[in-house]
């Protein structure tokens, strides 16, 4: 009962919902870059949020299955095929022993998620299977790696179940990202905020699972970039001394000493992580806390409305 890595993507790791409660000790939550696509794939095969799937980023991956099971692939910038036959993403499908599942990198995004019924049974570290290779909690996957699966005779869900378009993220090449200003907005002048709302930014190739570095109009501080180190969370847009934003991602440092101009709303974070380096033009718009919370509630309601009986578990990702 396993998946065998035949071709490894540049970034390829096991992730579940994330590891919570340890940021006070310097350990970030990890978990998927695109929480929405990960959750959708898991939901399509009947998995719970703490069951692990596979994250593939930036290049093609291929896997061999050694058993019969149910799978789903969600995300952007990938083309799915089984034994060379194209299959739609955002839909569950059956595989048999010996099948080759290929996630081919194409334009339109960076990350895709493969969920397998029952979840990947890799090692658990501090209550989670999410990979955090920087501290040796799992590692980026390589050719020949075996990922143990759970033996399930009966699947609660059947092949052909799909996530309707309106319940998926609305990925765009040039996304408009909702952000909540702060927590250090007083360190930036009104003119700098005008610039931040007006200018578009690009994702630098120096981005990774810790942070997305953006390039564009320089955002100067009123009184310098530094502050006394304080807790820092996912989505926070930090502005270091060079005025170029860094958006915190799941493997982010848990504390930081630079001011932050705004925080990306959770509902729009998937659009940002799928923005393509050197290609996508990213713009920002201010949203209120209430608006951001409503967008997030609407996103997770997509899982609730189409779920058979496990609504509650999907509400709180």
């Amino acid at each position, binding site marked *: 009962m396993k998946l065998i890595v035949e071709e490894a993507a540049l970034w390829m790791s096991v992730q579940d919902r994330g590891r919570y409660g340890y940021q006070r000790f310097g350990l970030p939550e990890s978990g998927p870059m695109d929480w929405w696509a990960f959750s959708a794939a898991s939901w399509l095969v009947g998995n719970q949020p703490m069951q692990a799937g596979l994250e593939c980023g930036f290049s093609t991956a291929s896997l061999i299955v050694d058993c019969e099971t149910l799978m789903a692939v969600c995300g952007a910038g990938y083309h799915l095929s089984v034994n060379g036959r194209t299959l739609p993403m955002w839909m569950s499908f059956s595989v048999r022993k010996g099948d080759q599942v290929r996630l081919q990198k194409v334009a339109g995004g960076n990350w895709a998620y493969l969920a397998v019924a029952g979840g990947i049974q890799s090692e658990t570290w501090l209550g989670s299977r999410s990979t955090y290779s920087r501290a040796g909690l799992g590692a980026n996957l390589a050719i020949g790696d075996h990922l143990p699966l759970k033996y399930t005779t009966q699947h609660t869900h059947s092949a052909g179940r799909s996530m309707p378009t309106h319940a998926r993220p609305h990925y765009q090449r040039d996304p408009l990202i909702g952000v909540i200003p702060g927590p250090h907005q007083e360190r930036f002048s009104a003119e700098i905020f005008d610039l931040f709302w007006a200018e578009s930014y690009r994702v630098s190739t120096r981005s990774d699972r810790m942070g997305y570095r953006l390039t564009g109009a320089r955002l100067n501080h009123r009184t310098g970039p530094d502050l006394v180190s304080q*807790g820092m*969370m996912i989505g926070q847009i930090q502005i270091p001394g060079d005025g170029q934003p860094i958006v915190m991602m799941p493997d982010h440092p848990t504390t930081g000493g630079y001011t932050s101009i705004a925080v990306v709303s959770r509902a729009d974070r998937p659009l940002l992580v799928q923005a393509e380096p050197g290609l996508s033009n990213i713009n920002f718009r201010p949203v209120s806390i209430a608006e*951001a919370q409503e967008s997030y509630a609407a996103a997770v309601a997509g899982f609730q409305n189409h779920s058979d009986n496990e609504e509650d578990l999907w509400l709180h990702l």
Partner: protein
Amino acid sequence: MRIKSEPSPRLLPVGEFGLLIDWGDTVSSLINDQVRALDVSLEAHSLDGIMERVPAYASLLLIYDPLVLHQSELITHINEHLSEIQIKSDHNIRQIEIPVQYGGDYGPDLASVAAHTGFSESEVVERHVSGFYRVGMMGFMPGFAYLLGLDSELETPRLKSPRTNIPAGSIGIAGQQTGIYPLDSPGGWQIIGRTTVKLFDPLSDTPFLLAPGDIVRFVESDGGSPI
């Protein structure tokens, strides 16, 4: 002792699911006491939906689930706790002793710290082990503690050129800070010694040796056990 939180911190939203309680830009034991007291108070009287409490030198970041806990409820809860927080008396504070082999291969920069400070190597060690260091915050890497309380006469700037690999357990000085590397890592701190104690062990029931608020004492070890 029950006291009112002074000075009053500001409550700043961080996105739609974070709240920063911010005491400002001063790094002091007095302010850190306030942070610690609120953190302890919230640990004892938690609210459903608080997912993370991240104390720092002069702030406490709370990460919460907005589908479970409304921001206004959280703010009310925080204000209640801030209005009357209890500074823990000393006997409640954990004191952790860390055996260190100073100098030699374990502390390649002990000589340069001595040269910079004008002390002999043994005087540097003597001053370093005499300190009571409070874990003011954790971060940078899992298990890394930012320690308050370095003897100001031991302050030494970082290396001009960082090392590509500093072994786990290395004890360093950087400016006014002293700390222990929990993992092998590149770094620019002046390394004066090393401990065999694990700061981060993901397979242990207690994966982190230190926690915010602990007091750390360094104890010179003769190197009886090989590193």
